[in-house]
């Protein structure tokens, strides 16, 4: 990640409510889905004109709903609220319908983790070309 990209993302993060989880200064994630949720929101903003202020408002609202309803023993996880806000913005902007989201969620939940594991993948998953001079 270049310094310019990093600064651009940091600028987006500075506009969000509460402190995003960090470790030694860098944005930190506990699970792979948190990374995906984070990357989806940033990518939608940068490539699809996803309105960051709208996301910011939804995140504030999601946190407020959680604060109002969660008991004192409820465990706080930033990305639970992040995902809730992301879903709402994506649906309200007609990028996805609630049915599509539910359908895809169902598909993922009912597909075994290693559903494709018996198939041989003969192509490389990544190629780093030699430098041409």
């Amino acid at each position, binding site marked *: 990640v270049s310094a310019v990209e990093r600064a651009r993302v940091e600028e987006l993060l500075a506009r969000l409510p509460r402190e995003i989880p960090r470790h030694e200064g860098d944005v930190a994630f506990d699970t792979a889905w948190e990374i995906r949720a984070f990357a989806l929101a940033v990518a939608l903003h940068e490539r699809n004109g996803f309105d960051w202020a709208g996301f910011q408002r939804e995140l504030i609202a999601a946190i407020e709903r959680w604060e109002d309803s969660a008991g004192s023993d409820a465990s706080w996880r930033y990305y639970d609220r992040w995902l809730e806000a992301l879903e709402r913005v994506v649906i309200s902007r007609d990028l996805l319908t609630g049915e599509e989201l539910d359908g895809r969620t169902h598909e993922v939940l009912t597909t075994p983790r290693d559903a494709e594991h*018996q198939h*041989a*993948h*003969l192509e490389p*998953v*990544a190629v780093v070309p030699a430098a041409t001079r």
Partner: protein
Amino acid sequence: VLGLPPNWYKYPAYRARAVREPRAVLKEFGLDLPESVEIRVWDSSAELRYWVLPQRPEGTEGMSESELAELVTRDSMIGVGQPRRPEGR
């Protein structure tokens, strides 16, 4: 990998880096590949396993099987190192 792989071998972060920046990961293992070498990354599956064939060093023409075997290192068998070069050549 023959036998049990080390724990970090299956960590998502390590696997992701091996795909995203394989050249840098290999360098951390001490294998500094020249920029002129293309790197391809494959994943194994239940149906597909890979066998690493170390690159034959220059100057080994005419060496016997046991002489060649002396040049093979553990790292060269797991794809993160080159085999030893024959001495005095």
